[in-house]
Each structure stands twice: as C-alpha cells, then as structure tokens.
C-alpha cells in the first residue's frame, strides 16, 4: 500500500543518475506500472470487504505513528490518480515538449505523483502537510521548467499564493496540536469534540481556508486561471485534473472526519458563489485554456455544494462528481494541447475549422465538453443530477437554481470554444497541411482517447460506481469505524 508513495520517490532518485531521456522514460513507466498494479490491488481488496487498511511507520502504535490510511475513498482516489498520471505522461512523451526533454522533468513528475498519493493516504494532519509540500514543490518546478517570461510571471503568483496556503495550513496544524495534543486524524475527532465551540470553529475555519486556497474556492481562486494556462498542456492537464482535487479531498476529510457536519451552510454558500464566479470568468474570456481553467473553479463549486449539504446521499454525489471530473477535465486540456501543438496556439484568433480538419479530435473534445456541461447521457449529467437531487432532498432551492444556471452557462462557454476553434472554415493563413492533425501526434491522440474512454466508462458503469460512492460516503461518515481501524492497527 505504501508503494504508490515510495515507488515514485525511489524512481526519482534513481533517475538523477540517468542522463539519457529514454532511460528516464523507461524508469518512469515501469514505476507507474508497478504503482498501478499496487493501487489496483488495494482498491479491489477494499472494494471487497470495506476494511480500512493502515500502514504504520517505524512500528509505533496506531495513534502515535505516522500512518498511511486507505479507506474506500482514498484507495479510489489513488487508483484514479495513478491512471491519469500514467496516461498524461504517455501524452507528454508523445508531445516532445521542450520541458519533457529536460533531465529534471521525469524525476520531478515522479515526485509529484508520490506527493499526490501520499496526500490521499495521509493518516495525520502533519503527514498531509508534508504531502502537500512535496506535490506543491514539484508543481512549482513543473510550472516554471521552461523559464519563459510568461511562466515566471504566472509561476510567481502560483508560488506565493501556495506558500501562503502552506503557512496557513501549518499554522492551523500547530494550533490544532496546541489545543488537542495530537495531529493524528484518528485521535482528533474525539479530542476536537471536547473543545469549546469558539476554539473549534476557529480551527475549522483555518483548515477550510488552507484547503480552500488549494482547491481554488471563491474568493481564493484567482491564482488558478492566472497560472494554469501558462504551463505546457500536459502539465496543466495533471494540475487541472488532480491538484485541485487534492484540496477538495482534504475538504471532504475535514467536513466528515474532523468536524462532521459543522458549518455546512457556509460551505454551501461558498460553493454556490464558486460555481457562479467560475463560470462567469469562463464566459468573459476568449482563450481556450483560460476558459477551461475558469471552468475548473466552477466545477469545484459543485463539489462544495454537495459537501455542504452533508448526509450520505450528498457526500456520495460529491464523490461521484469528484471521480467523474478528473478524466473529463484532464482530457479537455489534452485536446487543447493537441490543437496548440498543431497550430501553434489554441486562441480562436489563430485557429478555426478544427472539426473539418480532424473530426476525431472534434469528437474527443465534444464528449468531455458535453459531459462537463452536464448533458445526458454523459457522466457529468449523472454527477450533476445526483448533486441536484441531494439538494432537493435538503430543500436547498437557491443552490439548485444556481447549479442549473451555471450548468447552462458552462454549456455556453463550451459553445464559445467550439465555435471559435472547431467550427468555421479552415484558417487560410494556417501554414499546416489540411490533413492529419492526429497523424503526426499519434501517441498524444491515443492517450487523449484513453482518458475520454475512461470518462465514458464512468458513464456506462455509473450504476455500480454510484453504489460504490455510496459505500465510500457511508464509510466516511462512520467516524468511529475509522478511529477504531487506526487504533487497533
């Protein structure tokens, strides 16, 4: 179970000795393959019996040791993350971007993979902080690897904001420790419950702010659409698909394990505002990558809305949305990368008529785009339907209206991309040949196709998957089960 964390780290260390790119690529894919098998095994085992797996560092008893804890949600997230990371790396290899050829790209990418897995598996707050730092440090490097002016500018915003987030998180952890004398997530629920209301709320707000910055929640989202578009497409695809989800995952943990059901209304309001602001930003921009980046913010709002409602149905809907959103958003960014590589830019001022030149690429864009906008029969429709249904049960009418309007506006922003980039005549000024957008970029095309297929698979297998999400949600709400599993390990 510790393999998805340890493996990539060891691989990163080994790769520092390898000078040849092909050797580095080989080590990367081998490692990811091994982690894939390991995380799939853990996932299947937990799917079977639902027993929480715990790994303790240095052999201390459960609530003292640094622990890695895998429950249903964590195991699923690790598996999905490993799959996405692997496919995107294949894409990056096919893209042959200048940064992938740097001798640091592969080691840093591995470190980021390890950080993401560790964040999902962390069993205590401080371990979570360390995991955050590992993945953030790697993401800083990946974002600015080319070192162009634009990247340095955007990287600065990203780095400073995320350092601020780290400081707030660290402060929150320090204060939690001062108040309760522990940072173990298994011991915290009981100890936090004994605290006076004011102290507890203060600690919760600090944690929410810290994770909220990471998840790009209103009003702390502005760094995201600023920085993501400047990274190479393969990098921003992983960022878009996974990094903000780590923040959402931590918010889910905070709201279910540490402070179950508290401040739900605040989270709902923030969620609704995030949805709205994100989609308005998406509509006001023209650049494809910018629009996609703002849509991330708006999707985060949906997850927060579901999380704020609470209860097993709403949490299950949130989990389903979380899982569906990862491949959908990643594939949109990957399509953008293919367009940008073919025409030198993905701005509608430069590109048009992409659908005529490559119908396959148009389909690869259309499927996740419609899914994100929430049109049936795609996975996005099911995810949004589940969240709205949970809202109806809880009578959150304002939130539901916002969710539906935002869904429509998301479609509008997608249409904007479609009209600008894919429809219309082929730009006569384009120096590229009129055929074979994908022919020269086969590996990129295939890996994008695989992610799109993954999102379609989620739609097809929605029934069992939703059942699984319900089980995962029930396990999340069963705080005593988590505590006992870690204590008795």
């Amino acid at each position, binding site marked *: 179970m*510790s393999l998805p964390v*340890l493996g990539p*780290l*060891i691989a*990163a*260390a*080994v*790769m*520092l*000795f390898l000078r040849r790119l092909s050797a580095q690529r080989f080590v990367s894919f081998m490692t990811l393959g091994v982690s894939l098998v390991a995380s799939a095994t853990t996932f299947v085992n937990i799917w079977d019996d639902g027993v929480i797996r715990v*790994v*303790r*560092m*240095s*052999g201390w008893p459960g609530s003292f*040791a*640094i622990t890695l804890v895998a429950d249903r949600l964590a195991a699923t997230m690790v598996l999905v993350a490993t799959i996405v990371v692997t496919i995107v790396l294949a894409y990056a290899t096919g893209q042959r971007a200048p940064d992938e050829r740097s*001798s640091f790209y592969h080691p840093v990418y591995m470190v980021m993979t390890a950080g993401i897995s560790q964040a999902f598996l962390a069993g205590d707050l401080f371990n979570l902080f360390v995991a955050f730092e590992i993945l953030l440090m790697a993401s800083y490097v990946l974002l600015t690897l080319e070192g162009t002016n634009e990247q340095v500018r955007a990287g600065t915003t990203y780095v400073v904001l995320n350092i601020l987030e780290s400081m707030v998180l660290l402060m929150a952890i320090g204060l939690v420790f001062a108040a309760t004398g522990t940072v173990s997530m298994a011991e915290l629920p009981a100890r936090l419950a004994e605290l006076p209301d004011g102290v507890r709320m203060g600690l919760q707000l600090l944690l929410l702010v810290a994770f909220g910055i990471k998840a790009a929640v209103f009003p702390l989202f502005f760094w995201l659409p600023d920085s993501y578009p400047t990274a190479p497409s393969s990098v921003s695809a992983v960022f878009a698909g996974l990094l903000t989800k780590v923040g959402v995952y931590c918010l889910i943990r905070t709201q279910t394990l540490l402070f179950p059901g508290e401040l739900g209304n605040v989270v709902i309001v923030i969620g609704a505002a995030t949805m709205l602001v994100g989609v308005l930003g998406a509509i006001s921009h023209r650049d494809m990558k910018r629009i996609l980046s703002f849509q991330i913010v708006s999707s985060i709002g949906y997850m927060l809305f579901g999380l704020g409602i609470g209860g097993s149905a709403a949490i299950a809907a949130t989990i389903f949305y979380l899982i569906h959103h990862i491949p959908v958003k990643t594939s949109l960014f990957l399509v953008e990368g293919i367009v940008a590589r073919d025409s030198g830019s993905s701005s509608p001022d430069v590109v048009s008529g992409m659908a005529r030149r490559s119908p396959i690429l148009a389909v690869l864009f259309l499927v996740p785009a419609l899914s994100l906008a929430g049109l049936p029969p795609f996975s996005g429709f099911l995810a949004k339907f589940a969240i709205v249904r949970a809202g109806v049960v809880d009578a959150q009418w304002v939130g539901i209206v916002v969710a539906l309007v935002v869904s429509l506006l998301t479609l509008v922003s997608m249409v904007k991309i479609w009209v600008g980039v894919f429809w219309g005549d082929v730009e006569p000024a384009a120096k590229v040949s009129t055929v074979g957008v994908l022919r020269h970029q086969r590996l990129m095309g295939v890996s994008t196709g695989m992610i799109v297929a993954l999102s379609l698979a989620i739609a097809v297998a929605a029934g069992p998957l939703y059942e699984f999400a319900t089980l995962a949600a029930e396990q999340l709400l069963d705080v005593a089960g988590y505590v006992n599993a870690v204590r008795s390990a």
Partner: protein
Amino acid sequence: MTFIRSAILDELVDRWLSKVAALVALYVTFRGHNAPGGGFAGGLVLGGVFVLQFLTGREPHLRHRPIRRPTMLLGAGLLMALGTTAVPLFVDAAPLESHIWKPDIPVIGEVKVVSSMFFDLGVFMVVVAVVLMMLLSLGARGSSLVGDDGGEVS
C-alpha cells in the same frame, strides 16, 4: 570574479576554516541520534563552508571539487534515505523502523550503530548537494551577469 578580495580571509577560510567546519559537520551529523544535531544541521554546516569558499572568490574551485555533479550526490542521498524507509519492508518490519546494532570494535570498544543513521547520512548528502546546485546554477551563472566592479553589465 571575486566578491571579497582579501588574502587573510582567503587564507583563513581555505586553510583551516573549511577543514574544521567539515569535521564539525560530520560530528553534528553523527551525534544526531540522541543529542541535538543530525543530517540536516550537518549538511547546512558543510553547505555553509561551500558558500564561504564561493564568497572568497574560489568559484573555479567549485568546479574542480571532488563532486563534479551534485545531481548524482542528490540522487545518492535520496536513495540512501529512501532505502532506510523501504528496506525494513523486506524483513517484515514497518517502513522506517530502525534497528540497533552494537558491534564490538577492537580499539574503540562497543559502538552503537542505528540504522536511522543512514537516513541522516542521506539527508546530509541531499542538503550538501542542494547547496552545491544552488551555487552552481545561481552563483556561477549569476556572477557572470555582474561586472567585476560589482556593477551590472548591460
């Protein structure tokens, strides 16, 4: 290119400060198990020596030091630290679990060796490597952008 041109400083740093500091660094690293110190502190002390050497204008010295490629040192340090994490997994122990050997060495007597010492050594190497890499990429290239009189080259 020199930042501080002073024969005394040069002599002082190069002749004995660097050697003494290197010894101190090792001492700090190895006492880390039961007393304040450890790999990070030791690495910083040795890193400080390299920075001092750089500041006294021994920048070419940096290029000809025994460690040509700090990247390798970084990798070795990481491997060592991660190895201490992973090896216990193969002998059915928890990751990072430490083991204590107490071998009798003829002259010195009983020596206590803890497996977590290798972790500390790994950290030591990583810190030294990072300082060297910073000096190489920022210091050496940075100083080429600055004129000899300290002013900027346009």
